[in-house]
Structure formats: structure tokens, C-alpha cells
């Protein structure tokens, strides 16, 4: 039996699927978040040089990782929207952008909170921090550009170009600590291994999974609203139980 890959590219099929997935992602995310925070703030030991301050990484690192991953996913959806002309891809890109911007902001904010006691400065214009700030502006630019064009299909195309061009920034953020002298330390999680105590790692990866599930749940919730808004003139939306009420 051939699988019809494009079945869920149609909003009419994707809308109920997303509705079924959201509670699972949301509940799992909450459970993992509680476990991760418990592991991170109660079970994990203090760090030898940073003491208790290092515990910000349980929020800072997952948000930073997600800020970059979500941008790549957003740009990929935007590119798919341009190439295949699929409405849903562009809607997904629009739905992911605010969550990506939120995680970027959290990464910058928690980084500043950690930077003051550890480095001695809230903010330094080094390559890692600056490129992450540019990422925040790219997200905000994507959201504003999309919002400033009335015709949604034209808005999709214009914003998609911005997202695709901006994706060049993501490898720069990741490799910035390698390519240039920065105040930000190098990567702890490397392909060759991780230079971190095991309980700290478990807490961090649990938090990472929690943030992933949160991002998926919230993006799907948002895309459902976008689908309803954009397809409001269609027959199937008019026949939905939640719309009829």
C-alpha cells in the first residue's frame, strides 16, 4: 500500500491530527519539565568553580538550542511553502516564529543574568552573543514583515525569503565560539563527548526534551488557530463542531 505523504499537507486533514497530538505533547512536556527542574535544582551537585550559579544552564542551554533548531525548522517550512506552494507549510512557519523568538529572548536574558556574577558583565559584544541577538531580530523581522502585508499568500512569500536568507546566521551562532575568540565558553556538548557530570547532563537533556515538546504543543495550537482564520470561508471549517456552536 502506498503511503500518501501529502495527505497531512492539507489543512482539512492536519487540523484534527494536530488537535489529537497537542494534549500528549503538552502533558509529556509538563511531566518532563517537573522532572528536569527537580533533577537540576535538587539532585544535581553544585559546580566546582561556579557553585550554584551554573544551574541557569538547565534553562539557558535548552532555550539556546531550541532557538537555533526552531529557526532552521521555520526556514525549512518557509522554503517548502515557496517550492511546493503548500499553504500549510507557510502556516507552520508563521506558527513557529513566536515560540522561536521567545526561546531566543530567554536564552539572551538568562545568559545576561548568569554573565553578571560569573563574567562580571551583563552583556559583551562577542561573536556568540551578537549573532544570537541578530537571531532575535530575524525572528522579530519575520513576524513583523508577515504582519505588515495584508494578503496572507504574499506575506508568506516575502517572509519566507527573509527566513531563508537569515538561516545563514544559525551556523555562525553555533560555530562562533570555535571560529573567533569569544568570552562565551566553547561547546560542552560535542559530537566527541560531553564534558559534564552525568546527573547535570540528565537534568539538562530532560529539560531539552521538555522544551521540545512544549514548542511542538504550542506551535500546533497556534497553527490550528491560523488554519481556522485563513480557511474560515471553506465548507469544512463551517461544519466543524467547535465552529458551529
Amino acid at each position: 500500500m502506498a503511503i500518501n505523504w501529502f495527505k497531512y499537507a492539507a489543512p482539512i486533514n492536519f487540523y484534527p491530527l494536530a488537535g489529537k497530538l497537542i494534549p500528549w505533547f503538552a502533558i509529556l512536556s509538563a511531566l518532563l519539565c517537573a522532572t528536569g527542574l527537580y533533577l537540576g535544582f535538587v539532585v544535581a551537585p553544585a559546580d566546582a568553580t561556579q557553585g550554584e550559579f551554573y544551574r541557569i544552564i538547565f534553562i539557558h542551554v535548552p532555550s539556546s538550542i531550541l532557538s537555533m533548531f526552531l529557526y532552521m525548522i521555520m526556514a525549512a517550512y518557509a522554503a517548502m511553502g515557496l517550492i511546493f506552494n503548500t499553504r500549510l507549510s507557510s502556516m507552520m512557519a508563521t506558527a513557529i516564529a513566536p515560540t522561536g523568538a521567545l526561546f531566543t529572548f530567554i536564552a539572551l536574558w538568562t545568559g545576561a543574568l548568569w554573565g553578571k556574577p560569573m563574567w562580571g558583565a551583563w552583556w559583551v559584544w562577542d561573536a556568540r552573543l551578537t549573532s544570537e541577538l541578530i537571531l532575535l531580530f530575524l525572528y522579530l523581522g519575520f513576524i513583523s514583515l508577515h504582519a505588515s502585508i495584508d494578503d496572507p499568500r504574499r506575506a508568506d512569500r516575502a517572509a519566507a525569503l527573509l527566513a531563508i536568507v537569515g538561516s545563514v546566521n544559525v551556523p555562525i551562532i553555533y560555530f562562533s565560539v570555535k571560529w573567533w575568540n569569544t568570552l562565551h565558553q566553547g561547546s560542552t556538548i560535542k559530537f566527541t563527548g560531553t564534558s559534564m557530570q552525568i546527573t547535570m547532563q540528565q537534568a539538562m537533556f530532560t529539560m531539552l526534551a521538555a522544551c521540545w515538546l512544549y514548542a511542538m504543543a504550542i506551535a500546533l495550537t497556534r497553527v490550528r488557530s491560523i488554519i481556522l482564520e485563513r480557511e474560515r470561508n471553506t465548507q469544512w471549517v463551517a461544519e466543524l463542531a467547535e465552529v458551529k456552536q
Partner: protein
Amino acid sequence: MKPRQKRALFIIVGIAAVGLAVGLVLNALKDNVSLYFTPTQVYNKEAPQNRNFRIGGLVEAGSVKREKDGLTVHFMITDLKRSLPVVYKGILPDLFKEGKGVVAQGKMEADGQMHVSEVLAKHDENYMPPEAKDALKRAAAPQVVAPVAK
């Protein structure tokens, strides 16, 4: 070629072109993008003269000396090839320690020392509990003694 393949090709070529352009720009601005210069670069006159710049490296072990006023600190910043004397007056960050990373901003003066107005501590990428660190120190101790025995 189908229109959608054309669009895909256009996007791929576009990303490659933008990536190449950004790569060339960043390569040309290499010295400006880096936050600090190393002591070796300062000795090779790659750092700016008569102007503020940042110097980064490790605080050389045993080099930290405080003056009687309790605020002025002298220490050496090293990249394990060259080291540079630094003078700083002010409060040091908590993570400032001999053998640890540091980034300082200031100017080379005629006395051959770098007078800095800001000192930032640079943390490394290793996270471990204090007990593990003590264990590492004990394991490393014989290696420190070895050269003396020669």
C-alpha cells in the same frame, strides 16, 4: 525542469551565494569579530597601537600581586607562548583565579604594561562537582612533581 524544481534550485543557489558572501565578509573582518587579542598577537604587533583593545588568555599561575591600597592588582596574562603584564585597579569578578581564563580591556602604556579598566572572567566548558575536581587534582599531582625530580 518543473517550476517547483526551478524554485528549489533558485533557493539552494541563493543560500549558497548568501552564505559565501557572509563568509567572505566575516573572513575580511576576522580581527574585528574576535573579542580579544592573544599576548602572542600583541607581541607580533597585530593588536592596535595607542588605542583601547581587549586582551585574553590565562592568568599566569603565581603572577597575581596586590598593592598595599588593596585595589591595584598586577598579573600576567599568558597564552602559554607569550605573557603580558597587566595592571588593574578595581574589583575582580568572582571567577578570577590564577590559571583560569580572563579577558581585559585597556591600552598598552609606555612602561610596557597594559593598563586595563575592565576585567572579565572567562569560564571553560567543563562542569563537575567539587569532589570530582579534587580527585582530578590528586590524580594530576604526581605529574607536577615529576619535572622537579629530573
